[in-house]
């Protein structure tokens, strides 16, 4: 290392630029080296790896991220912008049919419009928020690496005999005259500390006692956990790693889950309500759901997937009764019960054709509401379906129209041929629902044929309707296990760093003069108690408080 500064210590050790305390003997090297105030012991006074005398571009980038000050700014900036995202609901908290460009303005006025225009309605997915996260991640890696490696080096090759100024400028100090053999005193003092689970390193008249060094690695293990956590969050952007959508399935239907190879069937949705005696007074008479359950079957598509002209071939892979807090789970895919709709939907009827004169009935025949067959042979009669309407109405021009594509008020027009009817057939209008039959006047519309024939459903067993639709929340989050692993590692690091303290005691005896200094990264009270207890065993009684040499955190 070429440097203009002379970084060589008087003990002969060559230190790196930026070193605060000599890596070998601990002598203070910086400007206030002659002062008597307690030393700054952070990172044991070693230089950060990135501190260099002539930085290149890479070094400058590295130094930027290596700065704790920058890291703090980044964290504060991220916190503030994450807060902004909570002012109004985020776009992804809305379900279908949501138009963000108008919603925020209509709901919250001008502030809402500004909020939307600034892109704060999708804060957490925005490029600048992701950029902040990436920068924090980078800062975590570089800050840690730049400090942990020199610290590791410094702690793994510590000198036992430290410079007197180093010892005397610790925050916990003791000095006195010792009678008798210095070696024996050091030996016996070391044994006292051993019983307190210190590791002892001695070179005769000097001693280093150390315990719980591993707690120094706590913050770095915590950072490794956080980096993993962040990477897992970023990994959610990988296609197929995260999904959060909703499907609506009427009873008995199979629905494709968009952007996947999965189909899900709702075999039966049931909802049971609390009976009145199970409810408190103020809720009696109100329908409170006790259980909603979807008998669901999950399929994967084997062939003809995504082909609108053919039916896909499905294979059952999982079956589960989905209830609240009991989702269907298959290979990371989870289907949660989300909502339901108990409006019945007509799926099909099985009516019969009745000859009003003779009372003879023909049928019943299957008439599904959607994609009904076009021809029906019923004994002597032949029915041809010529038109159908899902929600029948009469348009402004007097023509029949449909108001929607859902079978809310279905109507069918058959052309019937058979005995007693014109050769080219006679039209017959059929409304499967009784309310529509009356509302639109089926018999009046059918006029003369209404006297001869009637199509009607006999009994509810011939009506097929789905009683309910279930709403399922489809979720997939492959990053979640990694988030948990990251969080666990981070917590382990946090505990290591918080519940244990790295304590060190240095002492040397020069011509009967004992100099003792002790350092810990937290809990100075405990540090002083350790020193005072060991001294007491040696016959020196001191008040632990008197060991305090001033400084912060004392």
């Amino acid at each position: 290392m070429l440097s203009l500064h002379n970084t060589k210590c008087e003990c002969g050790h060559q230190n790196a630029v930026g070193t605060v305390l000599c890596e070998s003997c601990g002598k203070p090297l910086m400007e206030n080296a002659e002062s008597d105030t307690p030393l700054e012991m952070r990172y044991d006074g070693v230089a950060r790896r990135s501190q260099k005398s002539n930085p290149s571009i890479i070094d400058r980038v590295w130094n930027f991220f290596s700065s704790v000050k920058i890291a703090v700014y980044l964290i504060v900036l991220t916190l503030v912008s994450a807060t902004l995202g909570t002012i109004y609901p985020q776009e992804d908290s809305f379900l279908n049919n949501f138009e963000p460009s108008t919603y925020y303005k209509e709901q919250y006025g001008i502030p809402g419009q500004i909020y939307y225009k600034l892109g704060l309605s999708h804060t957490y997915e925005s490029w600048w928020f992701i950029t902040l996260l990436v920068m924090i991640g980078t800062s975590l890696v570089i800050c840690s690496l730049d400090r942990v490696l020199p610290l590791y080096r410094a702690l793994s090759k510590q000198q036992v005999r430290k410079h007197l100024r180093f010892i005397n400028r610790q925050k916990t100090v003791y000095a006195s005259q010792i009678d008798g053999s210095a070696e024996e005193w050091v030996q016996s003092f070391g044994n006292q500390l051993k019983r307190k689970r210190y590791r002892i390193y001695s070179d005769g008249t000097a001693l280093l006692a150390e315990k719980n060094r591993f707690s120094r690695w706590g913050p770095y293990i915590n950072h490794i956990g956080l980096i993993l956590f962040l990477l897992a969050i970023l990994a959610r952007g990988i296609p197929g790693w995260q999904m959060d959508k909703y499907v609506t399935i009427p009873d008995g239907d199979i629905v494709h889950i968009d952007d996947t190879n999965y189909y899900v069937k709702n075999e039966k949705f049931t909802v049971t309500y609390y009976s009145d005696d199970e409810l408190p007074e103020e809720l009696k008479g109100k329908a409170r759901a006790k259980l909603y359950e979807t008998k669901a079957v999950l399929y994967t598509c084997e062939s003809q997937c995504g082909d609108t002209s053919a039916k896909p071939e499905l294979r059952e892979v999982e079956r589960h009764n989905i209830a609240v807090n009991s989702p269907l789970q298959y290979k990371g895919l989870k289907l949660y019960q989300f909502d339901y709709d108990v409006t019945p939907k007509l799926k099909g009827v099985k009516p019969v054709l009745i000859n009003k004169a003779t009372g003879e009935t023909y049928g019943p025949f299957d008439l599904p509401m959607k994609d009904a067959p076009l021809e029906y042979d019923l004994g002597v009669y032949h029915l041809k379906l010529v038109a159908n309407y899902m929600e029948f109405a009469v348009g402004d021009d007097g023509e029949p129209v449909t108001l929607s594509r859902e079978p809310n008020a279905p109507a069918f027009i058959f052309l019937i041929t058979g005995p007693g009817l014109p050769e080219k057939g006679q039209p017959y209008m059929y409304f499967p629902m009784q309310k529509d039959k009356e509302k639109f006047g089926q018999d009046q519309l059918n006029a003369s044929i209404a006297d001869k024939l009637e199509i009607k459903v006999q009994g509810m067993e011939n009506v097929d309707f789905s009683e309910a639709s279930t709403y399922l929340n489809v979720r997939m989050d492959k990053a979640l296990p990694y988030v948990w692993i990251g969080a666990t590692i981070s917590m382990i690091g946090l505990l290591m760093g918080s519940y244990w303290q790295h304590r060190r005691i240095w002492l040397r005896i020069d011509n009967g003069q004992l100099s003792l200094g002790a350092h810990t990264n937290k809990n100075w009270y405990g540090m002083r108690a350790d020193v005072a207890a060991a001294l007491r065993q040696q016959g020196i009684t001191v008040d632990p408080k008197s060991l305090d040499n001033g400084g912060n955190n004392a």
Partner: protein
Amino acid sequence: MGKYRRPVQIVILLAVLIVGGYAIGTSLFAAKEDGIPKVGGTPPDFTLVDLQGNTHQLSDYKGKAVVINFWGTFCPPCVKEMPEFERQFAKWKDEGLEILAINLSEDTLTVNNFVRRFELNYPILRDVNKKTERSYGLRSYPTTFFVKPDGKIMEIKVGGMTEQDIDERVIELLKY
């Protein structure tokens, strides 16, 4: 460790560049695309069957001016537009105009009756289970996409149009 310092720095900064670049890139990309077609963007491809059973894939129409119209018999402005599109198709088909009218997942009989009643000659495609409609992010009907020969969307018109409206847009579309 000293001699590995520079390679380690480069490896870490490269990893940051790749991982971070990917994360930021996808968030930028997602913000722009959103899956739902926008003016200047590319309409999602589809393969649908017409009433005669022929398959039509949108990508086969690349290089042509295409009007994609979503319609249903239950939507009065759609019904009003269909004969207008028919006249526009007759007027411009020799200039290379293609009209693809995608029905909103209604059943065969309904669509057949409608097409027969209005004698429509341009392809009527059948969407199934609202799949195509969802991929186009439709919110109301009718919605019409005017797609330039380079495959980019010139305009998205939500709601009914007069024949004059359609004519003006087709003239502009054929300029490309």
